[in-house]
């Protein structure tokens, strides 16, 4: 039977005779019994990211609604059609991500690998098209306030896609090494939640910055 102090999560001050415990490590941290540490970490990260995007959107709405500035700046044009195709590329990557996890849950390893690899390639395509768009825009972040906000918002999102690609590359490599089963697939699920968040943010960025 456990002693009172051990039940509380720390070792007793005096060891019973003949019993030796190592005290080199602190007691195990308290954990939520409802949420896994990995999910909790991603949840807190995404909540903080929503606030970060909110700050950038505040700047955008400020110059359009409060300052009444033209969007985009006079003489400048945004490639709405190309960005629209890029939006379709990114949104379709969420479908392949969903397929990958569904395949993992169904023990369909080939489907999971194909889904993860396709998601990674679609994400990389999105980023490549966006960089190409930046090169051919004709204005930069220092040109005017509109340029600063355009590059700030789309660049912030691009950075998130880049982080998502790193997570996806880990998941894809692990999938090809035989990891993940129908029961243990957190390594696909957690990046999947992040990837859908990135897509949701892009839908809002594209519709406000490019269309409206």
């Amino acid at each position, binding site marked *: 039977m456990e002693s009172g102090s051990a039940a509380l999560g720390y070792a007793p001050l005096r060891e019973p005779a003949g019993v030796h415990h190592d005290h080199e490590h602190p007691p195990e941290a308290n954990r939520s019994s409802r949420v896994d540490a990995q999910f909790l970490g991603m*949840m807190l990260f995404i*909540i903080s990211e929503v606030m970060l995007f909110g700050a950038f959107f505040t700047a955008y709405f400020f110059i359009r609604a409060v300052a009444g500035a033209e969007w985009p700046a006079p003489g400048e044009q945004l490639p709405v059609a190309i960005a629209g195709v890029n939006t379709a590329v990114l949104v379709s990557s969420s479908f392949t*991500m969903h397929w990958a996890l569904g395949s993992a849950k169904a023990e369909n390893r080939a489907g999971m690998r194909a889904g993860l690899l396709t998601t990674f390639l679609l994400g990389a395509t999105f980023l490549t098209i966006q960089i190409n768009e930046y090169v051919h825009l004709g204005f930069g972040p220092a040109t005017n306030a509109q340029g600063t906000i355009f590059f700030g918002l789309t660049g912030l999102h691009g950075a998130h896609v880049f982080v998502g690609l790193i997570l996806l590359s880990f998941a894809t490599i692990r999938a090809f090494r035989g990891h993940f089963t129908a029961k243990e697939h957190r390594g696909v699920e957690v990046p*999947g*939640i992040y990837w859908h968040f990135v897509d*949701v943010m892009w839908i*809002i960025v594209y*519709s406000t910055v490019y269309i*409206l």
Partner: protein
Amino acid sequence: MLNPLRSEAEAFRFLVYVSVVVALIVAIVLLVRAL
């Protein structure tokens, strides 16, 4: 209640809902502007 941070399936459903709602808002705004 839908919680997009709970599981990938819920996050995906949330994405689909957001796509539909944003498409509707954009359509309404463009329609109002055109009138």
